[in-house]
């Protein structure tokens, strides 16, 4: 009976969403901000990737908010899951030689790929969030394979996370000092499509990459250690 009622409620909600969105043409745009970004994005920010120029430059302050949300989630999770060392009873389990060697071989390659994604965030698709997630998946691999289902000291992740968040805010505040508003792009723009271009965008994305990577790796580390 409960299932039938919940199914009917879901159908009603889905019908409401469908009929309210039916009038809106899919994919068509009614705002002119898209044309503005496409016409002026490369000229104003120097970043070949328009998505990056929107995320880090035009909407950089919102990105700071997103990063803060991730930071709070990570801090809250480690506050809930924190357990002192002597309370953990389980012994470390050694992994087999093949697993150990394989994950030691793959770990630097995954780190290299993740750093490539966030360093080239202003040129190719991807950026700090994607690169950070790839780096965190490398740490997940080592936690499962090399460290024998046992995390490391979480202070390392917390220190990296705090320093990179601080770097983001300091880069933004320097913009306030040089250009008059937060996250002003005060470095030279350079030639588009080159690695050293787009002013502060690569610096901000490197900070975000370190921050997201250490946050997600820290969350997994807390989960692994908590039991």
């Amino acid at each position, binding site marked *: 009976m409960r299932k039938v009622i919940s199914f009917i409620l879901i159908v009603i909600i889905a019908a409401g969403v469908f009929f309210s969105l039916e009038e809106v043409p899919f994919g068509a745009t009614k705002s002119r901000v898209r044309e503005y970004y496409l016409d002026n994005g490369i000229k104003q920010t120097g970043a070949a990737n328009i998505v990056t120029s929107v995320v880090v430059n035009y909407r950089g302050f919102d990105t700071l908010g997103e990063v803060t949300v991730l930071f709070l989630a990570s801090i809250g999770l480690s506050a809930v899951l924190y357990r002192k060392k002597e309370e953990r009873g389980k012994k470390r389990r050694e992994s087999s030689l093949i697993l150990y060697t394989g994950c030691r071989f793959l770990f630097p390659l995954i780190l290299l790929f993740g750093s490539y*994604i966030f360093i080239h965030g202003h040129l190719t698709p*991807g950026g700090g969030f*994607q690169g950070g*997630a790839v780096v965190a998946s490398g740490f*997940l691999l080592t936690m499962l394979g090399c460290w024998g289902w046992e995390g490391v000291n979480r202070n390392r992740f917390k220190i990296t996370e705090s320093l990179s968040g601080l770097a983001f805010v300091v880069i933004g505040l320097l913009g306030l000092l040089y250009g008059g508003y937060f996250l002003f792009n005060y470095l030279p723009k350079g030639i588009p499509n080159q690695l050293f271009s787009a002013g502060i965008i690569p610096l901000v994305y490197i900070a975000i990459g370190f921050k997201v990577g250490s946050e997600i790796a820290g969350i*997994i580390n807390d989960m692994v250690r908590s*039991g």
Partner: protein
Amino acid sequence: MIILEIILVFVMLVGAVAAGVFKDLLNAVIAAGFVSFIAAILFYFLHAPDVAMAEASIGAALTVAIFIIAIKKTKRFEEDEKGN
């Protein structure tokens, strides 16, 4: 190409329903990760490679891993409504 997308959407729907139906939570988590994986492929077909990258690494890998760690530390099988 459009036929492939339609097939992928239906496979994704099957995975989503399976994630809700399975009583074994490990199977349900793997089905949910499969939905994320197909979503990443669809994002790539829709010319959004950056979103596809985020979906593949977070949705299909890290979320599944976090759920599996949580299942390992709690219970694996869902109980019936009468059972508790």
